[in-house]
């Protein structure tokens, strides 16, 4: 019973927040609705017993989307004054959303400990005794070890490439030398001067 209830709750919220993602005018709101959709999708994944994918959704998508959100705020031309104007008005709604997210986490965990929904048919049945994180780990670090490491190298090349193509050593930039700053003493940094009145100062 609780599973069915949780399923319909998650499914409805996913659909609604998905619709809001594309219909809200402010890109920042879109991203927030998207995060809500991801959380609920993660709940659905927990219900079908794919806890690994649920974790991935929360960690990778929500985490990555939070960063994306940051970029959106930085790069798009958003009128912050206009956004802040509605803060008090929408604070209650925001709080309600946050409460909803927390509640869903609890419901999700509760439903999961009550036993997941049995899917009618599984494409690749796995041993029910093995949790699927362990099952994925078993494959990833044995059969797919070579490809997995290769994918790691692909990511490394992407990082090196991004740095090679964009990093510039600028000349004339005053970089910070922490050791020198720490080693600095008052006697080297200050001078006692007695300037003549009306003659100006020498720097």
């Amino acid at each position: 019973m609780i599973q069915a209830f949780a399923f319909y709750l998650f499914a409805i919220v996913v659909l609604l927040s998905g619709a809001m993602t594309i219909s809200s005018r402010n890109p920042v709101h879109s991203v927030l609705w998207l995060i809500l959709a991801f959380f609920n999708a993660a709940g659905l994944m927990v219900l079908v017993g794919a806890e690994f994918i649920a974790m991935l959704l929360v960690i990778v998508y929500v985490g990555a989307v939070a960063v994306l959100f940051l970029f959106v705020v930085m790069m798009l031309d958003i009128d912050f004054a206009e956004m802040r104007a509605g803060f008090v008005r929408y604070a209650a709604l925001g709080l309600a959303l946050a409460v909803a997210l927390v509640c869903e986490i609890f419901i999700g965990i509760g439903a999961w400990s009550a036993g997941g929904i049995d899917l009618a048919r599984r494409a690749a049945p796995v041993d029910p005794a093995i949790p699927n994180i362990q099952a994925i780990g078993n494959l990833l670090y044995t059969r797919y070890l070579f490809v997995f490491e290769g994918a790691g190298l692909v990511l490394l090349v992407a990082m090196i490439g991004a740095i090679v193509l964009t990093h510039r050593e600028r000349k004339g930039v005053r970089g910070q030398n922490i050791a020198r700053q720490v080693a600095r003493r008052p006697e080297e940094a200050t001078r006692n001067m007695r300037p003549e009145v009306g003659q100006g100062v020498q720097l």
Partner: protein
Amino acid sequence: MNYAAQLAMTLPEVVLSLGALALMLVAAWSGPNATRAISWAAVAVLAGACVALVGPATSGGSAFDGMYRADAFAGFAKTLIYVAAAVAILLAPGFFQRTAGDDLRPEYPVLILLSAVGMGIMVSAADLLTLYVGLELQSLAAYVLASFMRRDARSAEAGLKYFVLGALASGILLYGISLVYGFTGSTLFDEIAGAYAAAPLAGSTKSLGLMFGLVFVFAGLAFKISAVPFHMWTPDVYEGAPTPVTAFFATAPKVAAVGLALRVAITAMGPAAEQWRQIVIFAALASILLGAVAAIGQQNIKRLLAYSSINNVGFALIGLAAGTPEGVAAVLAYMAIYIAMTLGSFLVVLQMRDTDGQPIETIASLSGLSRTRPALAFGLAVFMFSLAGIPPLFGFYAKFAVFYAAVQAGLFPLAVFGIAFSVIGAYYYLRVVKTMYFDEPAGEYGPGDRLEGGLIVATAAIVSPLGYLAIPLLTAWTMAAAKALF
């Protein structure tokens, strides 16, 4: 099978990856001053990978549940790849030092090493996943290398073009892979071959899906080997990329992609040979014809060599169209000789620079080179005659081998058309020779470089008639490599 045995089979990749990581750390701490030392160290790592090819890496068989194959075929292709990558690393320091603009940064040899890892994975792939990871590793490093001269607008354009079109091709390839996986139920080449052999190849929904998958996979691979009609990126990328990088693009990744195409065609889709043969024959003839005709109007020597590489890939595909062990051996021999000719040509292109060291790329600047720099002119003439397939140079044997394999497989019309089109191709190679020997001198080039001069002599010796002495060895090696696929 235990890990030690599996890692022993992948030893070349392990050596290259660890070497690249170590050199990356050295580069991060010592900065651009150590670029030359890191370049030499990278060449040493490639030499180490060549040594690591002896043993289980070429005779071990399958590793990682059949996803990786360590056989003679992979060994042959990897040897060519590592040699070409080493030459590309050696050429860079001199070129970047002479050329105004960006300096060589130590990431260059590291990226080539990582690209070599990807190419090694490509030619050893026995699974669609391995294939794709290797391909992406190679391509991603290549996109960065193409735009390595950041202040040069043409180099940035080359990188961007290569990236956008390469991503599109990867998408096409992935689409094909997903179709093949969906309709065969496996990503392993052996099991895919089983599914192709078992399925009726016409008239059912399943066969339609299998055929679509095959066509998309071949389209994606045709992009990577720059075969017509997926060649559009080649001239722009080859022209815009720094010359050592162009020399790299024209050699090592081409061998890797051709090796990959051979393995996919023969081991994964061998039972559907009748189906893919049509695609390969069309791509071969179209590449030879377009590579020959479109090169005629080129003014830039790098663009000319880009069309030459399209043209040569067409000839190599003729051997694949035969689909026999002899055909595959001929393709491998062709790629070996092609690498020597192409590296030699690009080494000469590197010598085309004014007295300040700035590169000149127009063909017109070669006018009268026979009088100002007779040795250089003779070298380029040797490479051009060899690329045109004129006996007694070694390039003739390469073309002879693929045509012979095609004729033996009963593909007479293909061989006849190929030979006819190769005559058109000879025109523009000979035009370069004519410019050098019969036109009035245009201007002096700057002085040569000892390392590059030595490499020119070495490659010219390989494509000279002396190369014929190596035929028994080459034949034995390529046949052993080709038999590993069947």
